[in-house]
């Protein structure tokens, strides 16, 4: 009989006639399975948790939550086998088989079936004749089976000791199920699919393979000529900087790494300007500027315009939008509290530049957002260009460059750093003071939060900044928005996303304190980021530039690749998570 579906390798052990208490420890089981099968998506490929009551022969009985198997037949089956049944040797086999094999036979005897038998210690590989493999086993022994999908090997364990790879079973293991076969009357087998700790130290075994895979990744050869790799990384970094409009940094980086920037500086600065407006909540100005600088863009993208307008409405509620601000609301702190552009991967540290190793001609002072102050001594080859996930929702992370990685809490000395950067010879033409490189994550304690708290302590946050005129403007704007929505639906058909967006935004008005309402999250500054990113991508697309930076794309591809590996049963993906390289 066999256990339920297995996805990506499996482990099990059987206690021959053990009488362990089988209390339900679902939580422990689930936790253990998650640890043991990090890459298995159980929605697609559920892991075996007990024996399948369907896939069994009639002489087999199940009990103890389908974990205990016993033999109900009165006489030993299989005449050819019966002669081999000795009193001392229980006739029993454990192993693997594909679905649909004959359940009236011991594992290993038929095609797509593999087994290790207790009476002679032989291994059977789709054949009635076994080969010497391990010791015999009998009552009281704990036998385990482990399939390694990285090197496609299988080994059994006896009482916690590995018996070594079963070389005959070195093949692909697509969709095999753990199987146990009995044919001695009264025989009982208890199974452990992870309900209890395994006697064999499987965690230690996994540690070894994790280390191996990671070493393999670290030592992966990166092409014949080192310069190519370096310049590719530099291009990726540069394009990332340009994409997110780290204008001065991008320029300095390009200069020191000797590459061309594929977008005009003015264009980058325009995008930066718009992004800054969005991120500081000044949506009205942002929309206006976009229309000025990129005429037709919003006309061609009514959904985008709608989204921007909804955001503007939210910012009005917040009291940050320029239209309500000029109507007597308090002056927003937003520009200072939410400086810069979309989230970069890390904040720079000017202190680091003197001590960290870097490639020749690579001035780390200039590579905003990618410097580190904690240098790993790994070689430049070993680094992985692993920027965070795709699209607008970039996870908080830094990238590693130069083999060095950094993760540092964002300090409140951002301003100092900026000054430092400006004095670092970065040519600065804009008077707008680009706040290069300083970054804020809402998930981390930063100035933004601090400011807000201070504000709320001083005066309670009020709708539209507390100005009556502003509230009227907001309500009027809301009506316009409503009619725009209706117009959109007539023109372009129903759009549930738009509908929900509007509904959520209007819901803010239903609460006396929208900030502390269930829909209050919309007022959070972090919600500006997806909007900002979508707008940025749209602008870039009009210039025939990629809407995603190659760096983000590479990360997305890597993650996707791992997911595909997991689905096809390529085991090493279990120990290679993109997140491990993004700190």
């Amino acid at each position, binding site marked *: 009989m066999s256990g339920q579906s297995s996805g990506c390798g499996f482990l099990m052990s059987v206690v021959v006639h053990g009488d362990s208490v089988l209390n339900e420890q679902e939580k422990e089981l689930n936790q253990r399975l998650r640890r043991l099968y990090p890459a298995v998506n159980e929605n697609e490929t559920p892991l075996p948790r007990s024996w399948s009551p369907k896939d069994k022969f009639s002489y087999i009985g199940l009990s103890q939550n389908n974990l205990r198997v016993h033999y109900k037949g009165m006489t030993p089956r299989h005449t050819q086998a019966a002669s081999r049944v000795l009193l001392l040797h229980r006739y029993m086999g454990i192993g693997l088989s594909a679905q649909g094999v004959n359940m009236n036979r011991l594992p290993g005897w038929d095609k797509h079936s593999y087994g290790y038998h207790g009476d002679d210690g032989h291994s059977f590989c789709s054949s009635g004749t076994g080969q010497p493999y391990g*010791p015999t086993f009998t009552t009281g022994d704990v036998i385990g089976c482990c399939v390694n999908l990285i090197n496609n090997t299988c080994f059994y364990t*006896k009482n916690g*000791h590995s*018996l070594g790879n079963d070389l005959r079973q070195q093949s692909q293991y697509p969709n095999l199920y753990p199987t146990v076969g009995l044919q001695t009357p009264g025989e009982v087998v208890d199974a452990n699919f992870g309900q209890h700790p395994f006697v064999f*130290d499987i965690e*230690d*075994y996994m*540690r*070894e393979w994790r*280390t191996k895979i990671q070493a393999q990744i670290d030592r992966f050869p990166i092409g014949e000529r080192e310069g190519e790799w370096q310049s590719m990384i530099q291009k990726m970094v540069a394009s990332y900087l340009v994409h997110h409009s780290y204008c001065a940094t991008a320029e300095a980086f390009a200069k020191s790494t000797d590459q061309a920037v594929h977008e005009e500086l003015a264009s980058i600065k325009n995008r930066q300007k718009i992004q800054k407006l969005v991120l500081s909540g000044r949506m009205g100005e942002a929309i206006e500027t976009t229309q000025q600088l990129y005429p037709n863009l919003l006309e061609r993208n009514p959904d985008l315009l709608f989204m921007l307008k909804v955001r503007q409405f939210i910012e009005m509620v917040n009291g940050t939008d320029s239209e309500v601000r000029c109507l007597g609301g308090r002056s927003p702190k937003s520009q200072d509290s939410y400086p810069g552009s979309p989230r970069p991967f890390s904040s720079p540290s000017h202190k680091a530049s003197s001590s960290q190793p870097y490639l020749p001609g690579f001035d780390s002072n200039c590579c905003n957002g990618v410097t580190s102050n904690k240098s790993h001594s790994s070689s430049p080859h070993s680094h992985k260009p692993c920027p965070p996930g795709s699209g607008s929702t970039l996870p908080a992370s830094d990238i590693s460059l130069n083999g060095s990685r950094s993760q540092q809490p964002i300090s409140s000395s951002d301003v100092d750093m900026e000054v430092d950067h400006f004095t670092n010879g970065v040519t600065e033409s804009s008077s707008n003071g680009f706040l290069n490189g300083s970054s804020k994550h809402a998930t981390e304690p930063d100035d933004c939060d601090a400011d807000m708290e201070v504000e709320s302590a001083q005066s309670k946050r009020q709708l539209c900044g507390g100005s009556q005129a502003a509230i009227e403007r907001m309500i009027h704007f809301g009506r316009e928005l409503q009619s725009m929505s209706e117009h959109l639906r007539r023109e372009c058909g129903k759009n549930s996303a738009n509908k929900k967006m509007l509904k959520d935004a209007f819901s803010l008005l239903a609460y006396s304190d929208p900030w502390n309402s269930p829909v209050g999250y919309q007022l959070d500054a972090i919600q500006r980021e997806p909007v900002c990113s979508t707008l940025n991508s749209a602008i870039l697309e009009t210039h025939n530039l990629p809407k995603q930076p190659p760096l983000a794309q590479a990360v997305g591809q890597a993650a996707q690749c791992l997911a595909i590996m997991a689905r096809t049963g390529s085991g090493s993906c279990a120990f290679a998570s993109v997140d491990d390289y993004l700190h």
Partner: protein
Amino acid sequence: MACLLEAPLRISVLSEVTATSRHYVDRLFDPDPQKVLQGVIDMKNAVIGNNKQKANLIVLGAVPRLLYLLQQSSSSLELRTECSVVLGSLAMGTENNIKSLVDCHIIPALLQGLLCPDLIFIEACLRCLRTVFISPVTPVQLLYTDSTVIPHLMSLLSRSQRTQEYITQIFSHCCKTPEHQTVLFNHGAIQNIAPLLISPSYKVRMQALKCFSVLAYENTQVSMTLVNVLVDGELLSQVFVRMMQRDQPIEMQLTAAKCLTYMCRAGAIRTDDSCVVLKTLPCLVRMCSKEHLLEERVEGAETLAYLMEPDVELQRIASTTDHLVAMLADYFKYPSSVSAITDIKRLDHDLKHAHELRQAAFKLYASLGSNDEDIRKKITETENMMDRIVSGLSESSIKVRLAAVRCLHSLSRSVQQLRTSFHDHAVWKPLMKLLQNAPDEVLVMASSTLCNLLLEFSPSKEPILESGVIELLCSLTQSDSPALRVNGIWALMNMAFQADQKVKGEIVRCLGTEQLFRLLSDPDTNVLMKTLGLLRNLLSTRPHIDQIMSSHGKQIMQAVTLILEAEHSIEVKEQTLCILANIADGNTAKELIMTNDDMLQKIKYYMGHSNVKLQLAATFCISNLIWNEEDGSQERQDKLREMGFVDILHKLTQASDPNLSDRAKTAMQQYLA
């Protein structure tokens, strides 16, 4: 200085090089201390990685001057530090460099330097000391000559990670004997070094671990202390287990496994403790696998062999773990045929380790097969195993020969193997050859193996006899080593068992009665027991008894008397009484007892002894004397009746021991018939 360079031959070659080198040395003598300092710094930069320059400077006499500057309290700390750095650099060169440095008394000078309070200077001195002490040419005793050194080093352990690394490294290289272990132990090595096992520095952790492995080796006192040590609230054995985790560097896993192995062998950890059975043993088996470096495989196999040597359960587990028996067969495949063609460097590396690998594999096989018959069978069935042992026996390397013969010895404990594979492969031939001319340690093993090959059921017995083994064995009985004497006489004993008259005569003739009786008074009980065994085997079957007793009766009776009168163990006396019983079985030999009233009194005494075994043997003897069907049995029966033996026999028929009462009843029947 520089006197060596006056030789004209050298000047032509070296003049240019030495001119610059001489300049460096000359600058050490500048009256301006600032210039001296600059000179030392320049010298430091000049010697790094340049062995030729190092040798030149040593020849030119830089060392004594540097040492002088280092020791001078008037020198600035900076100068003294730079001096020790240069000396450390010189020590990094060849072994000859180290010898020169040691000859210049660098060690006491640097040890003296450790008394300085300045940490930078201390670290420089320690680094240099470390380099000197880890060289095989440095006598480790130099660390122990001044008894204040070890305690001072212990106190420096708290100063910095560097001092920790260097000092523990010095300790682990300089702890070679039980005396060294005791000195370090008495100065608190365990308490001082244990916390370093959780140091943030890998190097410190590793060196501390190495220290424990050399401290615990065959040392019960250290091992017993170690099991109770806590490091940050955790038992030391658990710390070692963590260091054996499979994601740790191999060096660390291996050394931690060694520590636990030594603690286990010293009796501090039980062999069935899970940290041995489920952690140490599997870890060591893993070390034997192909994926590791040759050195690691050697160390892994040797350590594993040592771990399970005394425990059959560990042997059984190891024999089924990861196909160990088959895995070891790979140890014989170096240098591999592939490496010979493709890669000279690899070939060289393989060749260098080939002997080590083979001896390690033999050792591990020996250990695996020392108790369990099934494992022995598995070993002999491994591909070409017997051929490998046979060729191992005649290898040039003594280590391999010794290990091969150990392996053979272990397998020779199997009756089945003696009857089959041993005979098929004529292992006795190389074994005999090995016995001709070998060091004692090899001889002990080889002769011990020979003992088994001479067992009665062994088919190899005949050809061995024909090869003139008796003389060889007799010469072994004259060895100074008790182990060799035992093996020699043991082999003779086995050989004499159920042997024909010719062989027995040959043994007696070759050994000589004088040597035989010398062995009967051997201080080693084992030798005595086996000699008695030999006598007993010689004195079996009636014609043999009569013949030997007719020629050597007097001496034998004398020896028997002596042994029975002396203080000996029950086993020795029992064996002697059995000899007497054999003598009583002879036709003419009987009379030697019957005419010896003193002897009869002794037999009577032992029939009433409190030990059943002795009673049984003595009764057996009397029973032989009074046996009916033989000539003169009536007279003997009468005489013995007169001496009161019947009463004793009668009493013994009531004995609680069934064997004894049966024997007595049988004897009584002789009177009734």
